[in-house]
């Protein structure tokens, strides 16, 4: 699928440890990972809040939510070869679950959210809204609901060996169906407007810049945790298996593994990450609507991942933040130009730089004496191309 099947760092790792144990790479790599982590944490927790204005910081919070989705896509697509074009669905499920709870909390116990009164079709709260009044239901639901949907769809689809383009189109159709459903059920979902004007976040007023900062810190911390989880998965025995399934599904099957189960785990984890991202997006931005989760935003999640480097750990995050930042910077002033640029980005990066910007880093690093284009990497690349 991609020319950077594995970056030199992971390729140098010895045989993976037995399952159940965390991968214990050479201490040098662990140290580097820990150092990188500390650097990222310092950047997110100290430098950004000190350097950026409140407005910029809340924008960054929004980008970091997109980056969380990107981490999941990097896992499912970069490592697992599943082009998930419907991650917006999971983002939306998480977002709506959170927004429903916050709307109910805003309205106060026993009251209906404002928009339901506005459309005036309902006398009382719909049954399926009620559990979301409890944070003990709503908060787990933001992650578990997307994971459940991904599990059902994934197990149906992967078991029957529907894959490649078929899977991509199906996941995209799921996004289309979800958006149409949300818009159609205006009375209970807010329709095209979505759930807007969210005031409070578990008792904290979201208009207060201090609380916005708190939301930012929660988001930054969550992103780091998700990165740690993704790194752990990628470097575990499971991660090896996932790459193996991507590059030769039939071989893995013949070796006695169940590729469907391997893919399912990555897809469900990616869905959970997207759900969490959606849930945190709501307090950061104050709105969730069908326009944020449909076909177009779903595919835009993917472009950041492609730009950064789909099969790497940090590439998707950096790519997602960079693309989201470029969109804000350019689309306000030149909306048309941004669309052209975005289209070009898709074309140029995917067609001519499939490893993303991370492959440029890898190229520069490989200059330093490591074998550049050995037989093995050529074979691997050819495999990846036809997978």
């Amino acid at each position, binding site marked *: 699928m991609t020319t950077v099947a594995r970056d030199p760092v992971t390729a140098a790792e010895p045989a993976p440890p037995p399952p159940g144990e965390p991968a214990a790479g050479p201490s040098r790599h662990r140290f580097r990972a820990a150092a990188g982590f500390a650097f990222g944490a310092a950047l997110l927790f100290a430098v950004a809040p000190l350097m950026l204005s409140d407005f910029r910081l809340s924008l960054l919070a929004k980008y970091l939510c997109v980056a969380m989705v990107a981490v999941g896509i990097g896992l499912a697509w970069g490592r697992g070869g599943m082009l998930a074009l419907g991650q917006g669905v999971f983002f939306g499920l998480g977002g709506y679950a959170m927004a429903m709870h916050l709307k109910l909390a805003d309205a106060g116990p026993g009251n209906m959210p404002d928009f339901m009164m506005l459309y005036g079709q309902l006398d009382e709260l719909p049954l399926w809204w009620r559990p979301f009044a409890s944070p003990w239901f709503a908060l787990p639901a933001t992650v578990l609901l997307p994971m459940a949907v991904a599990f059902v769809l994934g197990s149906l689809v992967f078991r029957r060996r529907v894959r*490649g383009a078929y899977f991509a*189109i*199906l996941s995209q159709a799921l996004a289309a169906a979800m958006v149409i459903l949300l818009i159609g059920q205006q009375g209970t979902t807010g329709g095209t407007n979505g759930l807007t004007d969210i005031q409070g976040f578990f008792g904290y007023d979201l208009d207060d810049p201090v609380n916005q900062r708190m939301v930012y810190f929660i988001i930054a911390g969550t992103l780091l945790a998700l990165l740690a989880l993704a790194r752990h998965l990628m470097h575990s025995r499971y991660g090896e298996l996932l790459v193996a399934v991507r590059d030769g599904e039939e071989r893995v099957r013949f070796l006695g593994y169940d590729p469907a189960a391997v893919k399912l785990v990555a897809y469900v984890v990616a869905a959970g990450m997207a759900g969490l991202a959606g849930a945190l997006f709501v307090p950061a931005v104050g709105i969730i609507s069908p326009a944020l989760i449909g076909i177009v935003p779903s595919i835009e999640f993917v472009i950041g991942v492609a730009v950064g480097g789909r099969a790497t750990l940090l590439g998707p995050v950096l790519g997602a933040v960079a693309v989201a930042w470029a969109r804000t910077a350019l689309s306000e002033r030149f909306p048309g130009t941004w669309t052209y640029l975005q289209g070009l980005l898709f074309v140029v990066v995917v067609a001519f730089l499939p490893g993303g910007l991370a492959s440029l880093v890898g190229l520069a690093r490989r200059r330093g004496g490591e074998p550049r284009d050995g037989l093995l990497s050529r074979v691997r690349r050819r495999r990846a191309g036809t997978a």
Partner: protein
Amino acid sequence: MTVLIGQLFTGVSIGAVLLLIALGLALTFGQMNVINMAHGEFIMAGAYTTYVLQQVITAAGWSLLVALPVAFVVAGAMGVLLEILLIRRLYARPLDTLLVTWGVSLILQQLARDVFGSPNVQTRAPELLTGNIALPGGITVANNRLFILALAGSAVVALTVALRVTPLGRRIRAVVQNRDLAAVSGIATSRVDRTTFFIGSGLAGIAGVALTLLGPIGPTMGTNLIIDAFLVVVVGGIGQLKGTVIVAFALGVLQATGEYLTTLSVAKVMVFVAIVAFLQWRPQGLFTLRTRSLA
């Protein structure tokens, strides 16, 4: 009974539109395994071609007739250009073609916005196609829907004949069935690919002409239709036309029935669930070419 037949006809006419769009995809996706997301924008190109021609030829009937071949060539030429510039490099990476052609479709949409403006434009339908025909039994059928049905039917017939009888069709089928064997038998597969892409994209142009009869023309008109059309091809099975034809009408009828019984939004979800369920039964689609490959 009348309602039933009326709904059936609605379903069939939805199916006819789907079929017109999916036919081209069946060719490009089926033969070359290329997921061309810009197909929707070729539809748009066909629609705008009709619009432009109507500015030149004011008689709506004539402009529509002229638009059919012109749109075919315009959209086909765009397809060939895309094939030469980009897709040719990506045959080994089908998923990446999806993303690349999505980028192309973004560019084409913005181009349409810059050239024709963001608001939708409208063409005048020829008078012959504006009314209804009353069938015995109190059923009325819209003329434009009937025209589209006929257009889709003739496109299927023409394509089938072309594939079955002509030397080009024989070459196309050979490449679909076994690309390597076709190549060693002296078929210039890359030229066949280009021709196939021309025809497939051209059919999108024809679909665009047909769509001008149903609604306004806008820069994003293709995006909304393309997913459904891809589903038709996925469910129909690649490499053959009959699956596409059957599934297009089946999905159309299912959609119309669901819409009649519930609402549009619920019907869409129903169709999606039905498709996933269907793929449990036949993961490769309704009809498939039997091959010995594992993938």
